[in-house]
């Protein structure tokens, strides 16, 4: 089981994802924007970061960029419902910046579980 940080400005979705991950046995923290996410990564050192891309102020692309600069070992799952640009393009950009899995919203919880299973050491 892993320490996981869920980042999304949509509070209802964030809470549901967190509840599901707790149900799977993970230790879960939440953040509502990119700044809070970076602060929590620094303090709590999660193994997995699940982040939305389109968020006000500091978005997921900026979070990925900052983590890359810091040389952070956190494994990132990026998710997006699209924004002012095509969501696949946003997720491709996230991949280039180091996201190991990308999910297009809406997605099934099985997809999230599989994504986490694929990046955690067995």
């Amino acid at each position, binding site marked *: 089981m892993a320490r996981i940080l869920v980042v999304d400005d949509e509070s209802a979705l964030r809470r549901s994802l967190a*509840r599901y991950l707790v149900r799977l046995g993970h230790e879960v923290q939440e953040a509502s924007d990119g700044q809070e996410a970076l602060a929590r990564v620094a303090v709590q050192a999660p193994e997995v970061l699940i982040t939305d891309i*389109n968020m006000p102020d500091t978005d997921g692309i900026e979070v990925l960029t900052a983590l890359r600069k810091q040389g952070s070992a956190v494994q990132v799952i990026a998710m997006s419902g*699209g924004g*002012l640009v095509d*969501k696949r*393009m946003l997720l491709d950009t996230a991949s*280039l910046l180091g996201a190991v899995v990308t999910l297009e919203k*809406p*997605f099934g919880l099985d997809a999230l579980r599989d994504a986490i299973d694929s990046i955690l050491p067995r």
Partner: protein
Amino acid sequence: MGCRGLLGFDPADLSGSRLVAFGSLIHPEDAARVHTEVEEGVREGRPFHVWYRLKRVNGTFVSVHEAGCAIVGPRGTISGIESLVVPAPTRPLRTPEVEELGRAARQTAHDLNNTFATIRTTAELVSLEAESDSVAADMAEIMAAADRGAALARTLRQLAAGAA
């Protein structure tokens, strides 16, 4: 795809404008718009996304998407711009009104996707935790409706792509 694959230039040729100034490769019809959009993003302290055409070493143009943001120092001074340039589908130029309509449609599609994602995820979670089959069946109907809604959001986004 790296600099050589995209433009045919060696990265060192463009680094610090040693051989070629990157800005000079932007299509003349796109240059002013690119400058404005990047400048607005930097001034407003937000990431910028811009589409334009870049001249390759063989003289042909390639459509690209550039996403980036300003590098802000500890005292709030801007020391540069960091961005990622990737190949992008050709984006036809449209009138400002049509561009605005496309932007509004993309934003609406994004908001709908987030709403349907919340509905679907919560319904699936309730279904997993349900002790009664009838609740699970109701949740399955809600999830199916959310999936249909997400498909409509995709259609809206495709229409927006045609408008902007």
